[in-house]
C-alpha cells in the first residue's frame, strides 16, 4: 500500500509543505541570519557578526523586560494552576449547576487579548481611581493588572483540563485509600495529585509558554507604560523592530534569544514534570 500512496506526494503533502516552507522554514532561517546583520528590510542585509547581540545585552530595556517577564511567568503559572485546580476539585464533587459554572468560567478564554486588555483597563482604572492612581502609575500596577487579567482568561481553560484529569482517576483507587483510613489531605496528596500529574504537565506547559509569550494583553492593557516599566519581552522585541530606527538587527537578535529561552523552558519543563507522572 505504501508504494501506491508514495507517488501521490504532490497532492497530499506538497501544498502543506510549500506553505510551511514559506510561512515557517524560510522566515525562521532568515531570522537567524538577519540577527547577525545590519538591515532595514530583508534585501539590504549586511553581515556584522555578533554586534546585534552585544547591543541587545547593553540595552537596559531588554533586561528590564526579561526580568519583568520571568517574574510575571512565575506568578501567573502558580496562581492560574492553583486556582484552576482548586475549582476543578470542587466542581467534580457533583454539586448542582456544575455544567453552568464550567461554561461561565471557560468563556473569557474565547475573547482575544486585545479586547480583554481594554475590558480590564476600564474596570481596573475605575477601581484605582478611588485611590487616585491608574494602571500606568507604576510598573507594579501593570504587573498585577496583567496577572488578574490572565487569571481571568486562563483559569477556565486549565480548569477544564484538570476536571478531565480528575474524572479519569479510577473510583476504586479513592475507595481503597478511604478504606485504608486516608484523610482528605492524604487522599489529595498521595492519590489525586499524583494521578493528575499528566494534566499538571500540560497545564503548566500551556500557562508557562502563554505567559512568557504574552503580547496582545500587554499591548492593550498598559502598552508597557510608564516608561517601559510594564513591558514584556514580546512587546519589547516588537518596539525594537518597529519604533527604533537602526535597531532592526538588535530586534532580530532579541527574537533569537527569546526563541532560545522559550525552547529551553519548554524542554526542561517537559522533562521535569514527565518524570513525576505515575506509570500506568
Amino acid at each position, binding site marked *: 500500500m505504501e508504494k501506491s500512496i508514495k507517488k501521490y506526494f504532490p497532492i497530499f503533502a506538497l501544498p502543506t509543505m510549500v506553505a510551511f516552507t514559506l510561512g515557517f522554514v524560510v522566515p525562521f532561517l532568515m531570522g537567524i541570519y538577519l540577527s547577525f546583520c545590519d538591515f532595514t528590510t530583508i534585501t539590504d542585509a549586511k553581515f556584522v557578526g555578533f554586534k546585534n547581540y552585544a547591543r541587545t545585552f547593553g540595552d537596559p530595556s531588554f533586561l528590564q523586560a526579561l526580568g519583568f517577564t520571568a517574574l510575571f511567568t512565575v506568578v501567573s503559572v502558580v496562581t492560574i494552576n492553583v486556582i484552576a485546580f482548586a475549582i476543578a476539585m470542587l466542581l467534580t464533587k457533583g454539586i448542582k449547576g456544575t455544567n453552568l459554572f464550567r461554561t461561565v468560567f471557560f468563556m473569557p478564554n474565547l475573547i482575544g487579548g486585545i479586547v480583554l486588555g481594554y475590558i480590564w483597563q476600564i*474596570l481596573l482604572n475605575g477601581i484605582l481611581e478611588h485611590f487616585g492612581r491608574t494602571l500606568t502609575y507604576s510598573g507594579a500596577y501593570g504587573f498585577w493588572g496583567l496577572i488578574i487579567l490572565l487569571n481571568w482568561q486562563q483559569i477556565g481553560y486549565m480548569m477544564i483540563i484538570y476536571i478531565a484529569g480528575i474524572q479519569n482517576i479510577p473510583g476504586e483507587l479513592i475507595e481503597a485509600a478511604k478504606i485504608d483510613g486516608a484523610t482528605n489531605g492524604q487522599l489529595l496528596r498521595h492519590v489525586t495529585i499524583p494521578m493528575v500529574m499528566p494534566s499538571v504537565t500540560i497545564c503548566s506547559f500551556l500557562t508557562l509558554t502563554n505567559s512568557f509569550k504574552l503580547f496582545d494583553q500587554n499591548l492593550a492593557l498598559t502598552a508597557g507604560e510608564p516608561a517601559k516599566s510594564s513591558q514584556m519581552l514580546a512587546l519589547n522585541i516588537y518596539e525594537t523592530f518597529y519604533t527604533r530606527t537602526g535597531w532592526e538587527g538588535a530586534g532580530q537578535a532579541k527574537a533569537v534569544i527569546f526563541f532560545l529561552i522559550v525552547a529551553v523552558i519548554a524542554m526542561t519543563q517537559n522533562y521535569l514534570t514527565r518524570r513525576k507522572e505515575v506509570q500506568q
Partner: protein
Amino acid sequence: MANKNADNQVSAVRRAKHGWILTLVFSLLAVAWLYPIFLVVINALKKKAFITREPFALPNGRSFFGIQNFISGVEKTQFFSAIGNSVIITVGSVAVIIVCTSMCAWYITRVKNRLTSAIYTLCLFSMIVPFQMVMFSLSKLANMMHLSNPIGIILVYLGFGAGLAVFMFCGFVKSIPLEIEEAAMIDGCTPLQTFFRVVFPIMKPTTITVAILQAMWIWNDYLLPYLVLDLKRYKTVPIVIQYLKGGYGAVDWGTMMAMLVLAIIPIIIFYAACQKYIIEGVVAGAVKG
C-alpha cells in the same frame, strides 16, 4: 446492616448540605466572573464623559446615550467590513488548514522515509517557535509575494499553523488500523478516494479539535494580520479595536466600549452554539499536545 444504612444517610445529608453551600458560593463567583462583560455593556450605553468618571454606575437619564456610541463607532472603524474580513480569514484558513494538513499527516504517517520523518520533526519543532522570531522576515516575504489581502493571508496561516495541526492529525492516523485502508485499496479505491471516503470521516473528532483550536487562535490574532495585511484596505476585528486607541489621539471610551460589545457578541453566539464541541476539543487538544 441498619447501622450501615444510617451511615449512608448521614453522609448523603451532609453531602447535600455541603453541596448547597458550594452551589451558592459558585453562583456568586460566576456572577463576579461575568461582571467585566456586564460592565462593558452598561458603559457602551453611556456618554463618554460618564464612562471614565463613574464607570460602575448604571446608565441613567443624564448619562444614557442610547446606541449613539455604536453608530459612531461602526462608522469610524467600518466595523462590519472588519467583521467580514475576520470571517473570511478565519473560515478560509481553518478550512484550508484542515484539508491540507490532514492529507499531509496521513501521507507522512503512511509513507515512511527520511523526508517524511524530517517533515514530522520540523512540524514538532515549529510549535515551540514564538511568532516574534519570524515576524519580520515573514511579513516582508508575504508583502513581496502579494499575500497582503484576506485570501493571501490564508496561505500564511496554513504555513504558520501547519505544525500543530499536522502533529495532531498524525497522532490520530497512527491509531487507525491499517486493515481498513488496505481493504478500501483492494476494493479498488485510489489513495485519494481512500483518504476522502474512508480516512477523513474517521478523523472527525480530531478535525473538530483542530478546527476549534485554530479558529480561536486566528479569530483573535492581532499581530500577524497587523503586519501582513495592507491596512489601508483590510482590517480585522482586533486591529480596529487597537486602532481606536492608536489612530485617533485620545481614546474615545464611548465608541471603544461599543466596539468591544460588538466584538464579543459573535464570540458568545459561537460559544453558545458549539459549547460542547469547544470544551471537548480543548480537552482532546490538550491531551495530545
